[in-house]
């Protein structure tokens, strides 16, 4: 059996590099990627040129702007995901066994991607280890990514060398320790406590750790000491778990279309074929699909966006194995959010999960099947709008009618008892009009004198108010409202609730008292 050989591919500054894919004209410029919500955006990713200028991660936008010539871009998860998928595909071309060691969205403070490839016995097929590393690097470079690659018979040595050295490193068998000796400690990704201990000991390189007596180190740092010593010598055993083997590795289908597809129907047909493949793969592993992300490559980028991609995701309430249900959900979602221009390619990325096992109560009422319910809810969302399906939930706010739609989740607890109709409860019931009716109101001073409703002028016989409320003064969505309760005699005696919005200078009929 040939000796094992590993190639580790490490892409630093992944966010900045991925962004350059969409903005190749910025390749030679200092670049900073911003994350966070305005006005508190902060620098998340950098390229070496901007780092050299003094820009640092964590800086605020306005500080980064003060560095001349630094291009600032918003972080695009979609771009990063796409670039990562391309990187993965590229690695797949060199080895069937690829393990993802770090994904770009793994850490919120910095961005990188690391892959480990098992290239054992690939020499005859692809050339010497250096040639393989060079070929892979070239391909990755063609994707617009700058990566470091390291090859070693020890996966840990390859990983540390790739993290610590730019370019290509090939470590001969048995030469791991000397090859790693000069690498700095951060490549080991130590805990804070470990980093402090080594700093106190004056240890700054892997070689210095390797030179420590193992027994003494273990006596001090325990099992971690053993692991770090092995790592520093590049001989820490590594069991490569390829993505294909991993239970939770996403299932991906990618299709480049011959002609741009404009209509949804043929697209759904193509998506259906891909989805069927994916569900079949999941079923073969006794898994179900928990979510599907759909990335549609557009022929032209829409004016509102800098990327030529349309990304959607569907997440059924429970993982499903029925691809028809998934397809229907995708179809309904795309009908609700159609792509803005013709499609030239698409990627389906499905997240597999264990099949749900639900024990129904013997006396529990029959509930609809989860998949069907999901489709029904999707249909409803398509009909009435996404934020109008679920169960209403009152908000902690003085704003009138402040509520939101929350996913319907009936609790186990018995429904709260209705408030007792004791004295504080008003005897009148209000029938609220939603949406409120815009009305014209005749005024006497600030109070309503008459209402123009359905072409009739209805004189107000008595009124009380105004009842004033306002809020959100610290935002642009500041609101203000004056309410009046009025009584009219004609056409029949009624009590009405009127509201005046001073911002819009508009009167509304918001309810009728019964």
């Amino acid at each position, binding site marked *: 059996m040939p000796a094992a050989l590993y190639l580790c591919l490490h892409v630093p500054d992944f966010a900045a590099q991925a962004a350059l894919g969409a903005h190749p004209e910025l390749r030679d410029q200092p670049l900073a990627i911003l994350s966070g919500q*305005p*006005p*508190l955006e902060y620098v998340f990713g950098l390229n070496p040129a901007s780092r050299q200028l003094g820009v640092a991660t*964590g*800086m*605020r*936008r*306005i*500080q980064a702007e003060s560095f001349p010539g630094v291009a600032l871009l918003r972080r695009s998860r979609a771009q990063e995901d796409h670039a990562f998928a391309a990187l993965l595909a590229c690695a797949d071309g060199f080895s069937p066994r690829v393990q993802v060691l770090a994904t770009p969205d793994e850490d919120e403070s910095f961005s990188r991607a690391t892959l480990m490839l098992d290239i054992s016995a690939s020499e005859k097929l692809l050339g010497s280890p250096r040639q393989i590393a060079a070929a892979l690097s070239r391909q990755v470079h063609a994707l617009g990514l700058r990566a470091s690659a390291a090859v070693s018979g020890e996966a840990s040595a390859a990983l540390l060398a790739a993290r610590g050295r730019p370019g290509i490193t090939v470590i001969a068998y048995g030469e791991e320790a000397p090859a790693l000796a000069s690498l700095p400690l951060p490549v080991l990704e130590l805990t804070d406590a470990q980093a402090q*201990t080594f700093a*106190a*000991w*004056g*240890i700054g390189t892997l070689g210095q750790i390797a*030179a*420590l*007596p193992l*027994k*003494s180190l273990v*006596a*001090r*740092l*325990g099992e971690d000491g053993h692991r770090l010593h092995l790592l520093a010598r590049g001989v820490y055993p590594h069991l490569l778990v390829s993505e294909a083997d991993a239970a939770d590795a996403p299932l991906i289908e990618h299709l480049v279309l011959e002609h741009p597809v404009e209509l949804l129907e043929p697209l759904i047909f193509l998506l259906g074929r891909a989805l069927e493949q994916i569900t079949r793969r999941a079923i073969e592993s006794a898994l179900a699909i928990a979510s599907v992300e759909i990335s549609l490559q557009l022929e032209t980028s829409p004016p509102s966006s800098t990327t030529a991609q349309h990304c959607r995701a569907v997440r059924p309430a429970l993982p499903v194995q029925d691809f028809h249900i998934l397809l229907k959900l995708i179809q309904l979602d795309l009908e609700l959010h159609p792509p803005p221009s013709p499609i030239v390619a698409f990627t389906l990325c499905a997240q597999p999960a264990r099949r749900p096992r639900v024990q129904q109560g013997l006396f529990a009422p029959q509930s609809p099947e989860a998949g069907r319910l999901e489709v029904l809810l999707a249909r409803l969302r398509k009909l009435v709008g996404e934020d109008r399906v679920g169960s209403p939930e*009152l*908000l*902690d*706010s*003085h704003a009138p009618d402040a509520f939101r739609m929350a996913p319907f989740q009936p609790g186990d607890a018995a429904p*709260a008892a209705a*408030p007792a109709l*004791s*004295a*504080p409860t*008003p005897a009148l019931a209000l029938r609220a009009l939603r949406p409120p009716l815009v009305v014209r109101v005749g005024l006497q001073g600030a109070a309503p004198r008459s209402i123009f409703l359905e072409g009739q002028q209805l004189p107000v016989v008595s009124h*009380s*108010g*105004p*009842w*004033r*409320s*306002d*809020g959100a*003064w*610290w*935002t*642009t969505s500041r609101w203000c409202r*004056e*309410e009046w*309760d009025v009584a009219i005699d004609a056409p029949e005696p009624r009590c009405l609730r009127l509201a005046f919005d001073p911002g819009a200078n508009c009167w509304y009929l918001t309810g009728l008292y019964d």
Partner: protein
Amino acid sequence: MYVELHARSAFSFLEGASLPELLMVRAAGLEMPAMALLDRNGLYGAPRFHLAAQRAGIRAHIGAEIAVLDLGERLRPPAWLPHAIPPEPLRLSLLAETQAGYQNLCRLITRLKLREPTKAEGAALLADVAEHSAGLVCLTGGDEGPLASALARGGYEAALHAVEQLTHLFGPRQVYVELQRHFDRRQEHRNQAAVRIARHLRLPLLATNGVSHATPYEREVLDVLTTIRHHTTLASAGRLLALNAERHLRPAREIEALFRDLPEAIANTCELSSRLTYQMSDLGYRFPAYPVPEGESMQSFLAKRTTEGIANRYQPKGDRPLFARAQKQAARELELIGKLGLAGYFLIVWDIVQFCNLEGILVQGRGSAANSVVCYALGITAVDPVGMDLLFERFLSEERGEWPDIDLDLPSGDDREKAIQYVYARYGQLGAAMTANVITYRGRSAAREAGKALGFDAETLDRLTKLVGAWEWKDKDDSLGHNFQAAGLDIQHQRIAKYVELCQRMQDLPRHLGQHSGGMVVCAGHLNAVVPIEWASMPGRTVIQWDKEDCADMKIIKIDLLGLGMMAVLKDCLDLVPRHYAEPLDLAQLPPNDPPTYRALQQADTVGMFQVESRAQMSALPRNHPTGFYDIVVQVAIIRPGPIAGNMMNPYMKRRQGLEPVTYYHPLLEPVLKRTLGVPLFQEQLIRMAMIVASFTGGEAEELRRAVGNRRSMARMKELESRLRRGMTANGLRPDAQEKIIQSIASFALYGFPESHAASFALIAYASAYLKCNYLAAFTAALLNNQPMGFYSPATLVKDAQRHGLRVKPVDVQRSAWPCTLEPEPASPQRFAVRLGFCYARGLRYRVASAIICARQPRPFLSVPDLALRVPDLGKPDLSLLAQIGALNSLDANASGGAPRPPDFDKRGGFHRRDALWQVEYAGRPAGPLLDALPEPDAAHSPLRQMTIEERLVADFAGTGITVGPHPMAYRRPVLRQMGVLAAGELARLRDGQPARIAGAVITRQRPGTAKGFVFLSLEDETGIANAIITPAIYEEFRHTILYERFLLIEGKLQNQQNVISVKARSVRPLDVSAARLLSHDFH
């Protein structure tokens, strides 16, 4: 006509948005004849409200909202509505009708506050209210009151019952049914029930607006304060926030229109206001009498003690005319003291001084009390006012009509606490308390809290608050907005603009009640009937609800028991010097003209000395060239904003050096100004000038001095100024001389020192200088043991002491005590070195250090494992800290428990810090009791290399803030020489005007308010301290470097003016010397 009778101010701490003064100004603007203030559980804002009312010419009614625990919870939204309003006890709104009512209110608040075990909001019990209900009027309240709560809980019947309960508690005449209209539908429902209840029980209705802010605009600030109170953000506060902005002071016509249907509710506001006869001008405060023996009056007792004191003080001096003058002055003072009825006050202060003397606590009066020979005779002050010809009128005068102010300086720390606890014990828990200190929102705190309210993340908040400038000098660009822009925020952004605006509006609003540094109030009878008392955050201390300004305004006498770090140093020296040097030390008998002491003062070699160590003092000392005690008095007084702003310093220095003739504004002033060479430097001189040139009486002149400094009495000042001018004209002074005199009065009446105060401080300054020059080791150890104090960090103090030949030894587990101690030098037993104490090992707790000291008593530690085994309290972090700072290096003798040392042991530097660290990691492992004592098999040596110099420096400063080795700059000297950088000690060689290049660690950064935006830096190197002057333009150019770099290289032009050397910077750049975190004292 309408009177607002229910208003909360910002002294309801985070429940009101306007200061009491602002409420009163607004009430006056609305032509209200009176107004009431009801803050939550306190009378915190009452004095300010009362005084503002006096100024505005309207009546102030005093009351409070009192939380009552057993009356139920205050109104909250129903359970089905989502909200985050926490349960709180409901509150009764009480107004003081009579003095008895006011006293009951004070007692009630004190009772509820002191019932809590520590400082807390607290709540009264119904029984307390019943006990203290006399003289109080109760309103049924708004949302916080019992009616609203009962109505929501149990409907009309419950509400009726609640109001009935109030009438039983307070009496039917004392309860008003309150109506508020904030345009809230639910509130109107309550109002209708309230009207029914009032009709049913025949109680009067009362309209109020439940005011929480003076104007609608301040509602936003109220909302921000609400979020701070409930630890939330504006976005998630929901129903905690105000429903609308209607809780403001309304004009009468608006509120009359609101209550058009219930005119009696408006009329009753005036009726109730006329019933509330109590005004705060009648507090009923009396200073306690001093118990004297039978047959004696306090006056006669004081006279006897004074006579004894005069004899004790003056007879040993052997100067009969001085003795006679002192007796005469004492008689004059005693007569005035008797006339003003102040004998008890003097005796009570004397009593505290007696206690301190008995307990061996150093005590010395400061301030204008030193002008009094009675104080001198009683041992309260240490300066001879007759010998120094000090002006008694500065201290006490018949015209002034207020209590004199005696401040006592005590050693900070335990001694001062003893004196404070003595006062508590003497006058009882309800008879004495500390004065409060109202902590208000300032730049940084406002920036932090407003940012939190708006939901900014922690990192942004840190960045913002760090950048809010804290310089004394503010240039025109130094606004909050400018600072925030510098922090990287776009102030054009709507949210940020709102943030900046909120920060500005929160300035000066009260945040919480702190404790004044030393002011104590005592009272005859019960202090808790005069002002509410509550717990201070410090255990065992109580505090009144008013700050020292309020106490002064309300004519409550305060005795300041101030902690002075240098007094603690002197006290420590009194112990260290006789113990180690075997020489007696009596601070009252120090040699008056010690040559080394004056030499050090003349050369401005004054690091660590009291009052004369600052950079400004150092630059003035060579020019002043002190040769006698009075020169030190002048030196202490001259570096003050008053003399500097009044342009007095330069003329004095020139005259002192003979560069300018001594002249006087008028020949009549020669006797007054002769001692200060014709330049007025002391407050007493101003008073005397006014007495001589304008024929003022002593009291009038003192009033003039006070009026100048008081912004509130502008009208009075103008009147006095015109009288001054008239008097000077009558006495034939020319207009230009008149102008100069008025300018000198105006410029430093407020900021100048009284001569007596300067003399008291000069005594301490001389003592500190004498000790430093003669007992350097003892003085340095005492200084290091009483940090933080003074102008310089311990690191600078150590370096200065080392330059003066003192050896400072590092912390050592085998030898160090908790404080720094003296160790005899082996070569010369009369010389001492200072051993750093465990108190300098950052993070090491006193308990652990004591355990180390205790464990080494029987025999020294043998090794690191031995230490770890014998001191189980020592955790791994402690061991690691001690190893890093070299405190375990002395364990080398038996480092391996007798095992043979490796052959290269000595070559490797012996047993070094890393060896210790290596062993610490083993000794500190969680091995369990079985394996704990198991020695490591091959522990003969560590595989670690010795720390480099840089690593040692970093470890020293991180672990102790001090290095006892060479200064970091010393290691770079060869390179610096090549760069043409001069050491601080070499600058004297250069001529004035020559270009110079200096470098060093920044030890102070200053931007004084009097220096027009100039920044002064002190750079320390191994030879001393070099000073740099940064012009505003250079500051702007190198702002970041100047503010944040620890080591600087400065190029510029050398200025050498009468041996005062500094470099006027032309460029500033950072210098890469060391990563050690040297600290700088900034923003003085």
